[in-house]
């Protein structure tokens, strides 16, 4: 009887210790703390790459790999996105058939506002991205929406990012707004969830795998990811939006990819951009 009692005590001790270990903060609406997440991510990269400056993470892999940086700096002497920015400005300033333009749809005439996107739209109860608002602007003025991934939408977005360069990201999760917090948490969960036939999460490549070779490529750190979008990617040979890249990454894990601007991708962008709060806009960028 005594032995049974003692084993019961031992089991209780063991179970309680397991319970303590399994109680994970930051995984529920009640416990998630975006600011703590942001600091933890920064600290992770500070420990991982102690020589890299925090502000330099807006340059992706070029913040942590000297050889790649050298090549990139050469590339940036004649930025491949330059013509796209010019075309984006032309498109942005071209009036719609009704005489109005993009400037009429955005705060401050659409200039210097990239750092505020994406944001939580309380009324629509969803995350809104810059590209989404560009198309909403078109549609509300009787124009057809643009395709999401490349071409005119990326050029307009690039021009808007260009006018916002060096502005500090300031993504807000309104206090007490459970919907906004839930969208952030969904984005966080997507980022860390393994999926697809290759069983890969975003974090596998861009957290644990940053600056580690995947075939001939070095995966960039997650911190600062959205700061330089849209990007001119040498692999694409053109400018593309963040959601074009999301779709490609999702497909690379051998998942059936979501559509660009799908709510899940918008939540992911909300999470990722919040993680980059305090860093500056430096889009458009160029990448391999």
């Amino acid at each position: 009887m005594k032995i049974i009692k003692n084993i019961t005590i031992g089991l209780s001790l063991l179970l309680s210790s397991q319970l303590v270990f399994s109680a994970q903060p930051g995984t529920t609406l009640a416990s998630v703390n975006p600011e703590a997440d942001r600091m933890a991510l920064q600290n992770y990269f500070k420990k991982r790459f102690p020589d890299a400056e925090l502000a330099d993470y807006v340059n992706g892999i070029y913040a942590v790999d000297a050889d790649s940086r050298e090549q990139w700096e050469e590339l940036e002497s004649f930025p491949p996105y330059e013509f796209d920015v010019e075309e984006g400005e032309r498109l942005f300033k071209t009036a719609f058939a009704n005489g109005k333009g993009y400037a009429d749809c955005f705060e401050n005439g659409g200039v210097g506002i990239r750092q505020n996107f994406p944001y939580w739209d309380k009324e629509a109860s969803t995350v809104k991205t810059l590209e989404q608002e560009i198309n909403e602007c078109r549609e509300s003025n009787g124009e057809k929406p643009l395709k999401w991934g490349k071409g005119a939408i990326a050029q307009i977005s690039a021009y808007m990012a260009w006018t916002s360069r060096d502005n500090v990201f300031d993504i807000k999760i309104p206090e007490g707004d459970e919907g906004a917090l839930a969208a952030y948490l969904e984005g966080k969960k997507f980022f860390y969830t393994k999926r697809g036939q290759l069983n890969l999460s975003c974090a596998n490549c861009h957290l644990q795998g940053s600056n580690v070779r995947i075939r001939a490529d070095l995966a960039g750190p997650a911190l600062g990811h959205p700061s330089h979008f849209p990007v001119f990617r040498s692999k694409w040979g053109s400018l593309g939006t963040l959601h074009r890249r999301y779709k490609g990454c999702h497909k690379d894990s051998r998942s059936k990819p979501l559509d660009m601007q799908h709510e899940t991708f918008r939540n992911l962008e909300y999470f990722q951009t919040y993680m980059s709060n305090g860093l500056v806009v430096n889009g458009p960028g160029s990448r391999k």
Partner: protein
Amino acid sequence: MKKLIAIIATVVLLPAAAIAETFDEAFEMNRAMYGKGYTFTWSGQQYSTDHQEEVEARVDATKANAESLIAKAKAHNAEVAKVGFEWKLTKGLLKDAEAAIESGDYRKALNLAAQAKYHARIGLQQHAYAEKNWHLSVPQ
């Protein structure tokens, strides 16, 4: 003293028992090492390294059997798609399986449907695992 020994024994031995090789681990290891059609022993019993879909595909190569397996694969894939864990190649496999039926190659159709069903089944397992463990790589 006896009490202390019992407590220590429970705390020390139980986790050791808990980390013993599970069936899934034994299956995956033997499958990876020897491929399908191999027999391995786990917990004193013998098991095959065949996936359940490979067993399901090992039926007579008839149109009805192929259609039945395709239907099962589609149902599983609809389930995994609903939770957002559908794999990239699954729909293509199902399409190819249907094309194989059209061309009268029922064996090929059975094998492709089995692959598609396997994708969907493992996708569902992946989802269940992720729901419990996604947070493990979040920096704290």
